[in-house]
């Protein structure tokens, strides 16, 4: 299938001033297929947000190219259609607030692409509903709590109905229930065909994806399904990462019971394995 996003030999440096440059992305290549659910992990400063900003042309590479549906992000004529294809929820919700009222903030992107009034209203209602912020629609977004701002930021991108959403640590200020709700939304959108790319420091969240890309010092060091990635416990540790809690527990149990699987990454699987191991009643 034709990739929705394709990076070829992408390099990027931030220019601090005339003399100093910080080289961040180093010759990165990969493709995302429509409908994929990809998690990007890596330690602080490894380049995840910089990479995310390349996926819809907020930043463009110094060397190499990024194509979105075959359109090069460097070509300014493509800007509009690229932003419509790939929406980004930034790491920092304050940087995303553009209006003085929540519902206008959520509608902002829709006005830009001239969505008809009726349709706009419908989409804003829907998006605010999904993130459970409907009762805040008339409040000023910069006067909200941290988690509320994050929810509004998510709504703004959902309302755009893009083909792909990039979530850059979009749930960092949410409680475990809020985070689960957003994960469910991601899963649901993905099931309906939307491409999901999520940057996260929560390994149990990354375990939900179909594919994990591990970034270190601006390069891809691993790219595989979660089950494969989380086999590399020591390598992940060296990269300042870890495996999900249930994988750690499975490992501990395995030391006592060698038949207990170490390849568990999700809670449900872990529970099933414990049950399989202790079928007293069945006998």
């Amino acid at each position, binding site marked *: 299938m034709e990739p929705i996003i394709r990076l070829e030999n992408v390099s990027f440096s*931030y220019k*601090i001033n005339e003399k100093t440059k*910080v080289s961040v992305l180093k010759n990165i290549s990969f493709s995302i297929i429509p409908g994929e659910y990809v998690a990007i992990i*890596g*330690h*602080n*400063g490894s380049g*995840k*947000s910089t990479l995310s900003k390349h996926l819809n042309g907020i930043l463009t590479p110094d060397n190499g190219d990024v194509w979105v549906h075959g359109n090069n992000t460097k070509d300014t004529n493509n800007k509009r259609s690229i932003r419509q294809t790939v929406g980004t929820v930034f*790491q*920092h919700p*304050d940087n995303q607030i553009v209006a003085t009222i929540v519902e206008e903030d959520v509608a902002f992107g829709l006005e830009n692409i001239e969505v008809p009034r009726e349709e706009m209203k419908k989409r804003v209602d829907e998006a605010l509903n999904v993130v459970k912020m409907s009762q805040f629609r008339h*409040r*000023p977004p910069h*006067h*909200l*709590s*941290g*988690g*509320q701002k994050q*929810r509004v930021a998510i709504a703004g991108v959902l309302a755009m109905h893009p083909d792909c959403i990039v979530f850059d*640590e979009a749930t*960092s*200020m*949410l*409680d*475990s*229930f*809020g*985070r689960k709700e957003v994960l469910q939304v991601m899963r649901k959108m993905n099931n309906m065909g939307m491409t999901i790319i999520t940057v996260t*420091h929560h*390994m*149990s969240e990354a375990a939900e994806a179909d594919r994990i890309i591990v970034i270190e010092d601006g390069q891809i060091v691993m790219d595989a399904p979660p089950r494969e990635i989380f086999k590399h416990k020591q390598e992940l*540790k060296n990269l*300042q*990462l*870890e495996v*999900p*809690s*249930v994988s*750690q*527990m499975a490992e*501990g*149990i395995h030391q*006592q*019971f060698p038949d*207990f699987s170490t390849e568990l990454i999700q*809670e449900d699987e*872990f*529970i099933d394995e*414990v*049950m399989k*191991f*202790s079928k*007293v009643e069945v*006998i």
Partner: protein
Amino acid sequence: MGARPIIQVENLSHTYMKGTPLEHVALKGANLYVEEGECIAIIGHTGSGKSTLIQHFNGLMRPESGKVIIDGVDLSKKKVDVKTLRQKVGLVFQNPEDQIFEKIIGDDIAYGPFKLGLPLKEVRERVKWAMSVVGLDFEQMKDRQTFALSGGQKRKVALAGILALKPKILVLDEPTAGLDPKSRNELLEKIKRLNREEKLTVIFVSHNMEEVAMLADRIYVMAGGKDVLCGTPKEIFTDKEKLQLHHIGTPETVQVLYRLTDLGYKVSVDAFSISEATEEIIKVLHGTKEDLEDVQRV
């Protein structure tokens, strides 16, 4: 309650933008006390008033009604020595960008200690120490520009700036949000040590129940601008009814143990860390294996 609490909040209320059409009640009669040397976690849903509550502790917000007494100083009084208060209470905001002002990382972290009038050598030592606590390499990062940082790096700089003040009371709003697993674990270990060994009083707001279980002596649960529950991690996380009533999450380990309990396994849910929870499961697996052998023998 033994000694005089170092923080005492009584019936505290706060309304944002009072008297305007945008008026919003954020706190309505919150209570809390903290004894010297305690480590307290404040948890609760988005918008429950956690950040608003803790911004009262260093005088950033003044009690609109109700009382806030910090180390004997009543903040509802007109004349409060805010400078001394800020020296005593170090508060790290939920959003680190609200806290970083200087252009260069080293200068930003040095700002507080410098203002305290400490000798340069001491300032430098403190900056070094604070950067090591948060896991920022001194030589590599001290001259880097603050605007040119990743999200996690910004949080580390903001944390270091407050730690360098060596406050008596450390107040942290979501200290580990956006930190990678290693940085998070190391920071938590260090905060725990400062609390246990140097008797630093710590109050932290968190959505991460792993760290709440690991660090807190007591937990306050906020809902709708009020404290609705308070107890030790053991009291809170083992009370299934209350967890459900107040919609409180648990560490992932405890969640697994609850599920096993529901399936009829005799595990104790009072095992928060990965190693404790693993032990607990190993115990029942040993048990069931023995039961199994008994059954087979019969």
